[in-house]
C-alpha cells in the first residue's frame, strides 16, 4: 500500500516537473531576449515550419537546413544594422492541427517577423489563415497546391511553381515527348496528391490522351498489389502517381516486380534521394516533374551544395536550395523594410508588404518576382528522368510560364 502511494506521488511529481521544465523554457527565452537587448541588437526571429518527422521528413528537414544556412550567412550583415537574427524551427509533422497550433505560438511571439514553410499544402492552407490574422509574411519554398495563393491572402507567397502548372506541364511532356496515349493515374488521397493528379488528368485529357484509370491508395500502406493488378489489366502506356516518395518508391518497385515495364511519372513529392533508396534499380525509366531545379547547374548552386555539405554533412535534396532562397528573399524584404523604416525595427505589416514587393531577386536556384497573388512569375517546372539508380536524376526539360 505504501509503495503504491510513494509511486503515485512520484509519478505526479514527475508530471509536475515535466510541466515546470516545459514552462521554464519560456523563462529561458525571456532571459535570452534580455541578453539580446543587452548584447546590442534587437532580436529578429524567423520561424520555419516543415515536417521534421514522418514520411516526408527528408524533404522537410532539407527545407529547414537550407533556410538555416541562409540565415547564418546573413547574420553579420544584420548585426551591422543593429539586429540579431535567430532561427526558430518548428515541426509541423505534416499535420494541419500541429501546423495551426505552432502557427499560434509563432504569432504570439512578437519577435518573429516571418515564416519559411510549409512542405505540405494541406498544412499550409489552415496555418496561413493564422499568419494572415497576425500579419506575418510566409514564403513557401515548396507548396504547390493552387489553393495556397488562390485565396488572395496578402501574407502568403511562394517561390515554387503551382500544381495547375506542374500537372499540365507533366501531361504535355508525357503525351508529346513520350507518346503516351493511355494513362493510368494513381494518387495518394492527400490534399497535395489529389490536387496534382487532378491537374495532370485535366492536362492529359486536353492533350488528347485517354485516362484508363484513376485510383487512390492510402499513405502508410505497403501492399499495392491490388491497384497494380488493375494497371496490369488496363495496359496503359504510362502510369502517373500523384504523391510522396515513400509510396511512390514502393509502387515503382512492386510494379516492376509484377512485370509492368511502361514508364512511370510523378510529381515533385517524389523528388528525393529516398525514392532511389526505396525503389532501388526499379527506379530506372521513371520521370518526375519538379518545381525544384537542379541546384548544381549554376556556379552559385555548386558553391551552395558545397557549403551545405560542409556544414551539415549531408548532400542537398531537391528543396534545400528552395529553403535557402525562401529565407534569403524574406531576409532581403526585412532588410528593405528596416531601411525604409529609418533603420528601426519594422512592423510585421511593413515586412509583409516588402516581401510582396520583391522583384527580380536572383536566388541560387531561381529568380523571384511576386505577382499580386503571391506566386512567383519566374517559377519553372523541371522534368527529370532516372536513367540509373542514383539521385539526382538527369534533367530532361524545362518548362516556364
Amino acid at each position, binding site marked *: 500500500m505504501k509503495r*503504491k502511494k510513494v*509511486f*503515485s506521488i512520484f*509519478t*505526479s511529481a514527475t*508530471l509536475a516537473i*515535466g*510541466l*515546470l*521544465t*516545459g*514552462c*521554464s*523554457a*519560456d*523563462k*529561458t*527565452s*525571456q532571459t*535570452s531576449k534580455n541578453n539580446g537587448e543587452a548584447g546590442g541588437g534587437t532580436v529578429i526571429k524567423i520561424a520555419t515550419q516543415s515536417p*521534421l*518527422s514522418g514520411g516526408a521528413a527528408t524533404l522537410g528537414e532539407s527545407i529547414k537546413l537550407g533556410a538555416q544556412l541562409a540565415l547564418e550567412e546573413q547574420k553579420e550583415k544584420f548585426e551591422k544594422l543593429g539586429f540579431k537574427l535567430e*532561427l*526558430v*524551427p*518548428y*515541426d509541423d*509533422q505534416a*499535420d*494541419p*492541427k500541429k501546423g*495551426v*497550433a*505552432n502557427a*499560434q*505560438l509563432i*504569432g*504570439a*511571439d*512578437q519577435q518573429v517577423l516571418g515564416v519559411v514553410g510549409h512542405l505540405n499544402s*494541406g498544412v499550409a*492552407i*489552415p496555418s496561413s*489563415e493564422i499568419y494572415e*490574422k497576425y500579419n506575418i509574411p510566409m514564403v513557401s519554398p515548396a507548396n504547390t497546391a493552387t*489553393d495556397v495563393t488562390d*485565396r488572395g491572402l496578402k501574407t502568403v507567397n511562394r517561390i515554387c511553381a503551382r500544381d495547375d502548372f506542374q500537372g499540365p506541364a507533366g501531361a504535355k511532356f508525357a503525351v508529346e515527348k513520350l507518346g503516351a496515349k493511355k494513362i493510368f493515374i494513381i494518387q495518394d*488521397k*492527400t*490534399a497535395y*496528391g*489529389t*490536387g496534382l493528379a487532378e491537374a495532370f488528368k485535366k492536362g492529359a485529357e486536353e492533350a488528347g490522351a485517354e485516362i484508363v484509370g484513376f485510383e*487512390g491508395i*492510402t499513405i502508410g500502406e505497403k501492399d499495392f498489389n491490388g491497384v497494380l493488378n488493375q494497371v496490369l489489366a488496363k495496359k496503359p502506356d504510362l502510369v502517373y502517381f500523384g504523391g510522396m516518395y515513400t509510396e511512390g518508391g514502393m509502387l515503382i518497385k512492386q510494379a516492376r516486380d509484377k512485370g509492368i515495364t511502361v514508364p512511370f511519372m510523378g510529381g515533385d513529392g517524389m523528388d528525393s534521394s529516398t525514392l532511389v533508396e526505396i525503389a532501388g534499380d526499379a527506379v530506372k525509366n521513371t520521370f518526375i516533374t519538379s518545381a525544384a531545379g537542379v541546384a548544381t547547374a549554376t556556379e552559385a548552386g555548386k558553391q551552395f551544395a558545397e557549403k551545405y555539405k560542409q556544414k551539415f554533412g549531408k548532400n542537398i535534396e531537391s528543396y534545400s536550395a528552395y529553403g535557402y532562397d525562401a529565407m534569403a528573399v524574406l531576409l532581403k524584404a526585412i532588410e528593405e523594410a528596416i531601411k525604409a523604416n529609418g533603420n528601426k525595427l519594422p512592423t510585421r505589416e511593413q515586412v509583409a508588404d516588402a516581401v510582396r514587393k520583391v522583384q527580380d531577386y536572383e536566388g541560387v536556384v531561381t529568380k523571384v518576382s511576386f505577382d499580386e497573388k503571391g506566386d512567383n512569375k519566374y517559377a519553372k517546372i523541371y522534368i527529370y528522368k532516372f536513367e540509373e539508380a542514383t539521385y539526382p536524376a538527369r534533367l530532361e526539360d524545362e518548362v516556364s510560364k
Partner: protein
Amino acid sequence: MKKWLNVLEQNKRLQAIVIAVYIVVTFISLYLAQKSVVAFLLLLSSLLLLHFTTFSHRVKWVIGIVVLSVLLPLAASQGEAYQSYMEVATLVGIYIAMALGLNIVVGLAGLLDLGFVAFFAIGAYTYGIFATTQANNFMPFGQYPLSGESFWVFLIIGCIVAAIFGILLGIPVLRVKGDYLAIVTLGFGEIIRIIFNNLDKPINITNGAMGLASVQPPKLFGLEFMYPSQFYYVVLVILLLTIFVVRRLEYSKIGRAWKAVRENEIAAQAMGIPLVRTKLMAFAVGASFSGMMGVVFAAKQTFVDPTSFTLLESITILVMVILGGMGSVPGVILGAALVTILNLQVLTELTNWLNQLSLSGVVHIPDALSPAKMQRFIFGVILILFALYRPQGLLPAKNPRFDEKELKSGATNMVDGKEGAKDVYFNG
C-alpha cells in the same frame, strides 16, 4: 505535513485565506510576467486546489467560474501571448468535454470505445459541409455557406446527428463482449475516417482528402468570433453546461444503471435493468458530447480534413480518462487538462528549448529523441504505469455517501461523496 493538512481541513476560514492568497499571487504574476507559462498553469491549478477544499458546492462553483471567466482572461490579456494562452485554454475546454463523453462510455458504463473520434469527425463535418460552399454540390435547396448565425443551431444538430450515429454503431456491437468491443469500435473509427477521406465521388460530400476550408466562424448579433479569446467564452459556456448535464446524469437512475452494467452485466439484467437500452443510452450520450465539440472544433479551426481524426486522437482521449480516473468527473477534467497542455505546450516548448541548446552548442540531443516526436512513447508509458500501479487514476471516482441520520429523518439532503469522503482521502 499531515497535521497541517488536518488543521486546514477543519478550518474553513483558513482554507479560504490560503486559496485567496494563492489566486491573487498567481494572478499578479501572470499579469506582470506575460510570457511565463508557469504563472498561467499555476493560475489554472488554483482550480485544482479549489477542488480539495471543503467549501460547499455552490461556493466552489462560483469561485471557479469567477477565476475562469474573469481573472484568467484579464491576467493573460496584458501581453502578446494572450491569443496563445486562450487557444490552449479553448482546446483544453474542447478536450475536456470530449473526455467527459468518453468517460460516460468507458468510465461509467464500462464499454471500451476506441473509435470515439469518429463522432467528433461526424460533428465537425456536419457543420463543415453546411458552413462552406461544399453543400452546394448535393443539396437541392438552400444557399450555402450558411451564415455564422447558424452555428448555434448546428450545436444542437451536431449533437443529434452524432447521437444517431452512436445508436447506429451501438446496435450491432451490443452483443459483443468487452475485448471484442474495443476492436470493433476501433475498426469503426477507422472506417469512418476512410469513408470521409474518400467521399468525393460520385457525389462530392466531404471533398475527400482536400478537406473543407474557410468554414464560417460563428456569429452572434453580428459579432464574429474570430479570435481564440472570443472562442474561449463559447467553449467555457458549453463546457459548464456539459459538466452540469454529466453530474445530473451520474446521480440519476440511468447513471446507476450504467454503473451496474459496468460491474456485472448478468447481475444487472437479473435486477431488471434493460441492458440494450442502457448501453445504447451510454453510446448516444457520449457520442452527442463529442459531436457537439466537433462542431465547435470545425468553427474554430475553420478547416476540416480527415487527418485530424485518427486513432491517435481516440487514444489521446482514452489516456485523459485513464489518467484522470475512470468514472470520476473532476478526475477526467484534470486528466484532459494535463494531457492537452502536455501535448500542446510542454512538449513543443521542451523541444524548442532543447533546439536552442543544441543550436548554441551546449548539449547535442539527436533529432530523433526530440520530445515533440516522443508523444506516442509518453502516452504508452503513462497508460502502462497507470494501468499497473494506479488504475483508479489521479482523482478516483467516489461513490456518494449518505448520512444515515439525515436519511432516517426523512430529509433528502445528500451529503455529496466528495465532502463525506474527504476524510478518507486525506487520511488514507
